[in-house]
């Protein structure tokens, strides 16, 4: 093993193509310490200086953040000004940075009430040797166990989107762990205690480019992952119905599909292919979550239309999960302000665009569901999955379709009262009250929290809504959860950080992690926000130079020759295109030339 690791931690991965999972473990144990961020080399610690508070500002909290220029660890101040929440930090070398942290202080205060911290990690994969967030792996101080583990299956992609620097041709290497290597990585995530990883997202690059994607899904299932989702543009699925069937049969639970808008102008990535992908997934009975990245001045005006699109195709679309933009790279403040959008901004836009059909008050922060875990845990005595992420990281709600009308869950369930009641009851059991008596009280009280007269018709019949809640909470019958969701659209929001709004308090609570080839689990907002110390460093170490990889694979084509080329004429002429977008956009109003221009401008060539 020593012979294939160079001093700069570059591994000759071409010599590992036949290695076993155990070999990867041995190698990882050797290289892991060398791949960690190095103090005074990769970053410095400059925590002494506290940023000033100016007139008209109200202090909220201090935290630790990183300098966007040099990654120095700085003390940052979170404060309120003009009804918004801001973060300010001062680097001794690069000066002051100020960024909007959350678009509404009022919502910030409401969400903050729902913060619960997790049980942490009792089997950390790295020792505590550096300050947060330069010690990720997960370290002993991490507060949340993983809710979702990401596996980068490849950095190859069949697109060359203008903003992306991640794909193989731009990086100059191919990162693509072998199936045996993946076995080692997935085992590592399952080793975590007190709660092992149970949900996996296979991502990329574009994971459908791997011929053995179905085998990865099968492997994950064998290793005990109960939920497997594939994060894709859906382009391959649009043209390969058999792949959708094979993925479903292998155990894939959901396709997580990029979907940045309802028009070609806002979603040049896969606007034309989405209808065909949805048809193939529908036939394969493989549900989809649509994932829009939201950018001010680009697609913020379409957020409600994206939800309408999801509702129109609710037979196959299970959710829409918005991701307000994470600004990567060094971007001047004025430019950032043009793009920056935070969770409250998107929620307000949705309320405005939906004419109040979905209001800001209908949303809850991710950790608000922790009382359900606490209650079930107290009842069963078993540790349960807890979504203890930071309250500012995400928000969610459910929309039910009822005879064409849209009913948010909050209109018939007193979510606030119900969750608080569950937390009280969980605490009572914990402090020694008889759990059977508490159960009886809870069952008797359920009716108090559900207004059946306002519930969707399906849930109204014979008190079905109450029965589902009873089955979930008391019988722990999670098929009831599935039934409850039927005809419901999950609408979520997850705001990943960047170096401008970076807050270590959020990193410490992160529950979306990446499993790295050296067997670490790195929080999303360290992996992608500090890529030079996490994502790029570790993937480059375990990669094969592009030329060499092509020789190994016997490929002679230039990258531009194997990239996806779009046949727009054929795609817009097809019946699925009209059927999917009708009622959402005026499909005849967009001239062909504009379709072509949108695709080309984005970086995807068109077959004329």
């Amino acid at each position, binding site marked *: 093993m020593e012979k294939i690791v160079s001093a700069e931690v570059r591994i000759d991965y071409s010599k590992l193509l036949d290695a076993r999972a155990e070999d990867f473990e041995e190698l990882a144990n050797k290289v892991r310490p060398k791949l960690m961020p190095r103090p005074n080399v990769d970053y410095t610690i400059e925590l002494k200086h506290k940023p000033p508070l100016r007139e008209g500002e109200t202090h909220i909290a201090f*935290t630790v953040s990183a300098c966007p220029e040099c990654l120095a660890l700085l003390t940052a101040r979170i404060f309120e000004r003009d009804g918004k929440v801001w973060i300010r930090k001062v680097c001794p070398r690069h000066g002051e940075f100020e960024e909007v942290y959350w678009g509404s202080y009022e919502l910030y205060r409401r969400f*903050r009430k729902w*913060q619960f911290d997790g049980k*942490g990690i*009792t089997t950390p994969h790295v020792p505590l040797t550096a*300050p947060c967030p330069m010690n990720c792996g997960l370290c002993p101080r991490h507060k949340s166990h993983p809710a979702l583990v990401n596996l980068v299956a490849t950095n190859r992609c069949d697109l060359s989107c203008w903003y992306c620097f991640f794909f193989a041709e731009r990086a100059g290497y191919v990162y693509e762990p072998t199936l045996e290597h993946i076995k080692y990585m997935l085992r590592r995530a399952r080793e975590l205690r007190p709660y092992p990883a149970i949900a996996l997202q296979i991502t990329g690059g574009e994971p459908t480019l791997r011929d053995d994607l179905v085998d990865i899904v099968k492997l994950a299932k064998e290793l005990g992952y109960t939920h497997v989702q594939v994060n894709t543009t859906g382009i391959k699925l649009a043209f390969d119905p058999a792949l959708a069937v094979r993925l479903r049969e292998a155990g894939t639970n959901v396709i997580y599909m990029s979907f940045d808008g309802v028009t070609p102008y806002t979603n040049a990535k896969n606007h034309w292919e989405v209808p065909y992908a949805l048809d193939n997934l529908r036939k394969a009975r493989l549900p989809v979550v649509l994932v829009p990245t939201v950018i001010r001045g680009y697609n913020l005006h379409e957020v409600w239309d994206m939800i309408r699109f999801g509702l129109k195709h609710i037979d196959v679309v299970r959710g829409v999960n918005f991701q307000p933009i994470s600004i990567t790279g060094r971007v001047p403040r004025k430019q950032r302000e043009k793009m920056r959008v935070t969770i409250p901004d998107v929620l307000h836009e949705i309320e405005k665009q939906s004419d109040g059909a979905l209001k800001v008050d209908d949303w809850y922060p991710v950790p608000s569901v922790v009382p359900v875990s606490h209650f079930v845990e107290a009842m069963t005595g078993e540790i349960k999955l807890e979504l203890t992420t930071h309250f500012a990281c995400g928000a969610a709600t459910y929309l039910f379709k009822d005879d064409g009308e849209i009913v948010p869950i909050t209109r018939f369930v007193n979510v606030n009262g119900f969750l608080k009641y569950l937390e009280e009851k969980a605490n009572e059991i914990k402090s020694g009250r008889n759990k059977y008596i508490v159960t009886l009280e809870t069952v008797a009280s359920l009716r108090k929290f559900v207004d059946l007269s306002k519930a969707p018709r399906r849930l109204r019949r014979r008190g079905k809504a109450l029965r589902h809640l009873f089955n979930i909470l008391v019988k722990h019958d999670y098929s009831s959860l599935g039934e409850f969701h039927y005809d419901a659209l999950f609408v979520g929001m997850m705001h990943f950080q960047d170096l401008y709004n970076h807050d270590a308090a959020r990193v*410490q609570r992160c529950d979306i992690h990446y499993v790295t080839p050296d067997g670490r689990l790195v929080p999303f907002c360290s992996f992608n926000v500090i890529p030079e110390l996490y994502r790029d460093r570790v993937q480059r170490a375990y990669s094969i130079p592009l030329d060499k990889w092509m020789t190994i694979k016997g490929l002679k084509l230039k990258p531009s020759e194997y990239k996806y080329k779009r046949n727009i004429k054929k795609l817009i002429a097809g019946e699925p295109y009209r059927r999917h977008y009708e009622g959402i956009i005026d499909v005849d109003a967009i001239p062909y030339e504009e379709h072509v221009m949108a695709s080309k401008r984005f970086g995807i060539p068109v077959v004329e």
Partner: protein
Amino acid sequence: MSTHRTVRFTLTTSTPRALNVSVEPTLYCVAGGEITRLEPSRSEPFSEEHSLLFDSRYGDTLGITFVDLISGNYTATLLTYDVPETCSKLLEVLRTKGLEHGLYAAVYECESDSRVLFTPIVAKKLSKLSEALGVKRNLLKTIIPCKIP
């Protein structure tokens, strides 16, 4: 003679979660089945330089990190103890307010400063603690600052 460092602190914060906590450590030397209280040889103001020490003591045990500490209003003192060479293990008793339990115990190996046990001090955990320290349960009861049945 080696040293052992720890932090005494109080913290009131609202972000990201509400905490109103105080933690008062007391250190005991364990040698040959006997246990004696140690007094700090130095007390000094806590500063950012001690962030890693704070995290190593409380990050994974009490779930309170340096980032939590600086988020709100806090007072903190760095305590340094001279540890006699005869000590084989150290028992750190944390008297706390605002947490799930009022008393916690941490056991450290003197040679490596590695923590081998962390547990709330409740009657049912006392045997485990006594085993980890090699000290009789009854002896422990006499030094632990609370009434244990």
